[in-house]
């Protein structure tokens, strides 16, 4: 039996990893909940968000914004808007024109778009093939409680992720545009008849999901101090799987699924003999079990409809 502090440290590691996955998973679940679309380029939008954030940090340094808190805030705002708008463009290019086509076509189109985004970063970003260092913009240093190492930046990352998730929840449930999203999720035609602007609602859904991916991308860079153009491949697969475990279309389910996935991977690597080699096998085996025995996920699908 490993010492208690090791178990607690691993639990904290799993929580951090799970939060990263949860932020990506929420985007997947928003697209599916509102539009029944599985947006498979979302993982690469997440990468794009990270690279947008990194580029903005260079811009702020170049124009002389030295205050880390201001630079961080501007980085988040800039990357959110930029990535959100690219998400909307992706929707207009790959989702809306295929609204009446079989779902497989949308799947293929978004998969292809993901490849285009990834290759574009590789080719056009300076030395895009190399991993890129991400600047430390959060308070550095650490403290220990009972042998568990907690970094200040990890607490800040958890706080930022928490705020982002609460904001998404408030937008969906407490705002006019959120009401439109819920109405479209329930019945798009009826919502239109009641005066909901379908195009604007769909655009906003993609803006919100993609902006959240940018938050995930920047937090990923801050947590690991490094980003790479292929980070969205596994990030996207795991984010989608997490959304499916939680229940596609259910925001809380996506958060739960992300956390579960992170904790499962960490526990497998930490406590199963040779588990590190099989961490993905274990986590994806759980996904398969869910798909077979509870295909609607932990919290069930499409909560957005029922709200």
């Amino acid at each position, binding site marked *: 039996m490993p010492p208690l502090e*090791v178990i607690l440290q691993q639990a904290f590691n799993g929580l951090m990893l799970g939060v990263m996955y949860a932020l990506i998973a929420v985007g997947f679940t928003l697209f599916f909940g509102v539009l029944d679309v599985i947006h498979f380029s979302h993982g690469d939008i997440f990468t794009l968000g990270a690279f947008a954030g990194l580029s903005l940090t260079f811009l702020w340094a170049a124009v002389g914004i030295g205050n880390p808190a201001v630079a961080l805030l501007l980085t988040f705002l800039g990357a959110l808007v930029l990535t959100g708008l690219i998400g909307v463009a992706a929707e207009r290019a790959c989702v809306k024109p295929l609204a009446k086509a079989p779902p497989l076509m949308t799947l293929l189109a978004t998969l292809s778009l993901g490849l285009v985004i990834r290759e574009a970063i590789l080719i056009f970003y300076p030395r895009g*093939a190399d991993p890129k260092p991400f600047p430390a913009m959060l308070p550095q240093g650490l403290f220990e409680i009972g042998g568990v*190492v907690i970094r200040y930046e990890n607490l800040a990352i958890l706080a930022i992720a928490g705020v982002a998730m609460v904001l998404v929840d408030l937008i969906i449930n407490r705002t006019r545009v959120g009401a439109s999203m819920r109405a479209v999720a329930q019945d798009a035609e009826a919502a239109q008849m009641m005066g909901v602007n379908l195009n604007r609602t769909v655009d906003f859904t993609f803006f919100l999901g993609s902006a959240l991916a940018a938050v995930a991308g920047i937090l990923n860079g801050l947590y*690991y*101090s490094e980003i*790479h153009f292929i980070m969205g491949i596994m990030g996207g697969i795991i984010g989608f799987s997490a959304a499916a475990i939680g229940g596609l279309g259910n925001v809380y389910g996506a958060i739960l699924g992300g956390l579960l996935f992170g904790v499962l991977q960490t*526990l497998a690597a930490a406590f199963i003999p040779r588990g590190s080699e099989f961490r993905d096998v274990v986590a994806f085996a759980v996904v398969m079990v869910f798909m077979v025995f509870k295909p609607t996920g932990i919290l069930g699908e499409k909560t957005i409809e029922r709200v």
Partner: protein
Amino acid sequence: MDDQATKVLVSRRDLLKGGTAAGVGVIALGGLWRPARAQAKKVVKLSFIGPLTGGTASNGLGGRNSFLLAVAERNADPKSKYRYETIVLDDECKPTVAVQAALRAGSDPEVIASVSHYCSVVAIATVDTFNKLGLPSMVWGAVLPDITYGHKHVEITRVNGTMINQNHIAADFAVKKLGFKTFSIIHDTTDYGRGHAKYFTEGLERLGGKILSTTGTAKDQKDYTAELTKVKAEKPEVIYYGGLTPDGVRVKVQMDKLGVKAQFQGTSGIKSDTFIETAGASAEGVYCFVEGAPTEKLPGGKRFLEAYAKMAFKEPSEAYGPFAYVATHLVIDAIEEVGPDRPKVAQKLKRTRKPDTIIGPVEFDEHGQNTVPLITTHVAQDGKWVVWEDSEYATGKRELPGLKFKRERA
């Protein structure tokens, strides 16, 4: 699975870069001045295969440039019997892509030989492909022993050393020179990572070093906190990482974030400028081992670097560029001697002996393996890789992080 594996063999960017560089070399040194004579020579094609994109691209691009330099030199030599043309292919450091590249090179009958592979995981994957196609292939960077020792194919040779020597010397350095006794090994689960872990373990056991744990991890894994937390509880003096740059960066940076107080020891796979640039301050005091010596210290290193500079390549030659350069010259020597005939060239290359290459004497054993490889220790100091003997860590002016932790514990 990484969907990059299904990508076209050569990216547009690399086609442009490779094509331009090859074109400049061939035109400037081979054809423009004496077109009538050049046209009279029979054309022989050579292929280069290496990672031109992905995390290890810097090494692949350095190798490719060095290959193009050697070809340009031979085309400029009036004594050359043939005019050499090049095909540059990207293996992305991925086995499936590499096999496609080998198939593409081998299926062109005008290609007489290939200078192939930096990554062990792809070099071992293409061994049988080169054998089936009968295309002689000289490896210029991959270090897995089985690439030359795991079969009896006449087509495969290797100019650089293997990871056996590298890891035995690495174990010797850590135990005997630095006095470390306890080690935790982390390695990627490719043949490359497993091989390094295996031969380093062999070396340690021979010297009485204690291995606390061995952990295999997936290539391109992002999060190592679970593995490092486990290792931290073992309190090793050294964490040995057998893998390539992108993952090596992650392990080292996350080690520091988790407060793991151990020395980080790497292999030739992390010896790249990208490691130091990406790991930043975390790279300081990391050491690793590379076949050969720094280019400027090689017997013909100065001459090589001058010629390389004249070609005005955008990328540096990196640690294995000189090996690609020598491999290309050896391949061309064989073609010049026996003619552009694949089986004859393969037979000739298998027992290559040449005492005066820029990397020193080259002598292949019956497996086509160069038997006189030199291993050099490098340490990261002030954002640069420095040869151990020239570093302030060797003179005692600075203390390696692992030695400092060991002293603090005592």
